[in-house]
């Protein structure tokens, strides 16, 4: 599906979604309350059929007090891509899991939890994946401080 028909289909079903046509990949921002329904829809709708999570990450915005989770999705059936963004509250970072829709997201979500401290609700195995199990803090948050870090901090 081309970019504009893809946006039309998504926004028709989810009017609260905000589409950003400018970036390299088509991008949609969805409020957290509708996030889970949105993901279920684009996963199961045969016209969209996003069956492959290419990657997942997060962005920390301390000034706005949010952590934006970013999902890169791909459809093998249609060959189209979509970026889905959703804000989590930074002080109490919680997101609904999508690991039951895409098994690959199980590890992606553990990675985001490991580095940003976003807890994914109903995740089957919510623990650190790359850092040591006794690690304190979430290193990719901008206010992370560690005495072992040399040089400037952000």
């Amino acid at each position: 599906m081309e970019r504009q028909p893809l946006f039309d289909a998504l926004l028709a079903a989810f009017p609260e979604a905000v589409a950003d046509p400018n970036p390299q990949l088509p991008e949609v921002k969805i409020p957290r309350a509708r996030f889970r329904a949105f993901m279920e829809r684009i996963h199961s709708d045969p016209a969209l059929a996003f069956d492959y999570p290419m990657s997942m990450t997060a962005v920390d915005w301390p000034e706005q007090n949010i952590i934006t989770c970013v999902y890169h999705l791909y459809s093998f059936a249609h060959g189209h891509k979509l970026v889905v963004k959703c804000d989590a509250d930074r002080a109490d970072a919680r997101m609904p899991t999508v690991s039951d829709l895409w098994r690959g997201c199980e590890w992606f979500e553990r990675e985001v939890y490991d580095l940003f401290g976003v807890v994914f609700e109903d995740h089957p195995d919510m623990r650190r994946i790359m850092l040591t199990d006794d690690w304190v803090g979430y290193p990719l948050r901008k206010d992370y401080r560690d005495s072992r870090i040399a040089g400037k901090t952000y």
Partner: protein
Amino acid sequence: MALSPIQKIAGVVGAAPGGQFVLLNAEALFNWSRANSLFPLTFGLSCCAIEFMAAGMSRHDMARFGAEVARATPRQADLMIVAGTVTEKMAPIVRTLYDQMPDPKYVISMGACATAGGPFYFDNYSVLKGVDQVIPVDVYVPGCPPRPEALIYGILKLQQKIMREHPILGPRLAAQAAKDREAAKIAGAPGLA
């Protein structure tokens, strides 16, 4: 410090006429064979391992210096070439591998990462700032990554270091023996090395 059995024997042999000559040549033989048959441990932590492999292949051919028998187990290795970035999570594993190696054992820190954290020194939460924080290092090889020539130069430096060791006498007795030889030379006694 208590003397080991071999040091006691060395004391008896060294006291005999010409005994120090025997001991010094025996030590030289030990050192020569150790320095020229270093068995590196097969492991690489990042891109330096590619240069390590290249150093072992035919173009650079580490076998010319007797260091080509890369062993797959630390029990058979006596040289650890730390080739790459040591992360906080990898550090205890590197330490365990080092502890599993039999004595005498040597460590070459290959490249900027293993030596001081390299490009990961600043603003980094996960990389150790030098492998010498967990294991003792004999030779540091700079470079990012070092060319195989640089690694081979490091091995040659390590060989020079091994050749100066005193595997039988130990450093304390060796210093005493050197002092004795000096005194004997002044006294004009013949037959001493």
